């Protein structure tokens, strides 16, 4: 392993030791585990009622699609990434510990890379894991029927799509909020701006729609959720971006943001607001 790889591995190891499943991230774990508890509760209730009022597998699939669109993408992963990634630099500035990194012979670009990978590992573990577990739990009360749906029906492909979208969301939002943590003293301000922009996406003109993360992610989801009335009249339709453009496009966009963050980090100074 060359020096750069060893240094990035050193940062990754240190960041994971400091932050992975640490107590101060409790609210991020809550965001990730919320749907798991919800789907677990749903399963237990369905078992408890012995199938009375049982709904169809298709309905559960639609419920999960709604949960994924409106909770995971717009709330859980979004704010989870705000909490994880914007604190990678800003949190250390507030705790006055960033200088320890700045006093190692580590190129700042590599520090950004190492911290991003550590944040990404945490985000993927929490949100991709949560998505997969929730998906597996939501139809569990159908027993062998749900197993068959996953193994021999469209279930596995849907699960794969949701996992991929959740991972891409972590990658994209992670890059956005890592950058905001370097540039802004209060990362909640850019987070609020990005959130408003992302949620306005269905109502934006086609050109503006494409300057967002949610537009690409939404098109990759296996089940589409229409905007309910009366808001649906304001929706402006745009041609969905094909898979082969959406996925590399998001990865390239994230890479550009990371490179820009790395170059900007070169010029940052240690000033703990004194």
């Amino acid at each position, binding site marked *: 392993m060359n020096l750069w790889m060893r240094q990035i591995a050193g940062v990754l190891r*240190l960041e994971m030791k400091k932050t992975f499943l640490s107590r*101060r991230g409790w609210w991020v774990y809550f965001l990730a585990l919320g749907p798991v508890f919800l789907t677990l509760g749903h399963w237990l209730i369905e078992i408890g009622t012995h199938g009375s009022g049982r709904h169809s597998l298709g309905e559960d699939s639609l419920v999960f699609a709604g949960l994924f669109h409106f909770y995971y993408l717009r709330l859980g992963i979004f704010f989870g990434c705000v909490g994880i990634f914007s604190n990678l630099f800003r949190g250390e500035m507030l705790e*006055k*510990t960033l200088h320890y990194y700045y006093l190692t*012979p580590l190129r700042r670009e590599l520090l950004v890379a190492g911290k991003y990978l550590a944040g990404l590992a945490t985000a993927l573990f929490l949100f991709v894991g949560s998505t997969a577990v929730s998906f597996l739990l939501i139809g569990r009360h159908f027993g062998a029927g749900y197993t068959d749906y996953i193994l021999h029906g469209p279930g596995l492909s849907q699960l794969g799509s949701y996992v991929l979208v959740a991972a891409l969301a972590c990658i994209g939002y992670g890059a956005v909020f890592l950058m905001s943590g370097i540039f802004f003293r209060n990362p909640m301000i850019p987070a609020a701006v990005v959130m408003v922009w992302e949620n306005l996406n269905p109502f934006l003109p086609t050109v503006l729609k494409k300057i967002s993360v949610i537009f690409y992610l939404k098109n990759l989801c296996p089940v589409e959720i229409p905007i309910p009335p009366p808001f649906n009249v304001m929706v402006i339709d745009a041609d969905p971006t094909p898979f082969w453009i959406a996925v590399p496009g998001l990865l390239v966009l994230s890479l550009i943001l990371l490179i820009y963050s790395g170059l900007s980090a070169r010029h940052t100074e240690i000033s703990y607001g004194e």
Partner: protein
Amino acid sequence: MSDNLITFANISRFYGEVLGVNKVSLAIPPGVTSLVGPNGSGKTTLMNLMTGLIRPSQGEIRVLGMSTEDPAHLCRAVGYCAQFDTYPKGLTGYQFIYSFLRVFGMSHEECDQRTMAALETVGLCDARNRAVAAYSKGMRQRVKLAQATAHEPQVLVLDEPLNGLDPLARAEAIALFEKWGKMGRHVIVSSHILHEVDRISDQVILLSQGYVVAEGQIQSVRGEVKDQPMQILVRCDHPSQLAAQLFQENHLVEAKIHTDGHGLLLRTTDADGFYLLLNRIVIDSGLVVESVAPADDDVNSVYQYLIGGEGSTI
């Protein structure tokens, strides 16, 4: 430009409208160098500049020939024990030192060996597996010192390194600084415990309000303060007789008999002339002189002379 010096070439640093340091030009040789000045005089700014944590608004800094803009090279040669009493959360003393050594790119074995050696140097081997957050202030200061020195830097920058240490640990730390200085390393120290650091300093840099007021070996700096008569303490058996004879020369400004009756504290405008005169008096009168020593060539006195009232805050 020498590769064995830390050089500041006309360095200024402003924090917005506020002056950090202004027009500083220095060439710091190996050995122990003390930065002396009251709060806000620019000591920490100078230290942050030479370790690359902040950039100068103008001018150029070279550390052993390296630019401070290049952390990949600079930080292998520099160790900085900063003033902040803050530590990454959730790490033990061992993990704190070991983990940052891994960021240097060293192997596990080398990091482990250096970590243990650094912990041993500061006497924290037994406490290595306790969380740094659970350490006393003195232990935290020591683990910070160990972390800054674990990679054996050629340049060691220490901002108030004696804070929180008990007298024994302080003496050990000072002995360590002296040892590193004698090994040919640069040891740059700022401390308000002047009389202790003063003893081991090869040179001092006196700062006031962002400007370098004086620099060099403390005796030379004292010698250049011409408008303040030199204080000399003479221990002898008949101080009053000595005083009477010394007053025959007009360069003697003041003489005070020591409270124990066996010494004379003198102020003279011509130290060289005084020493010649003292030799003559001793030979002629047969006085028994135990010792003759300058009484105000320490950092604190020099600072008081140069800066006046402000010096009392250091």
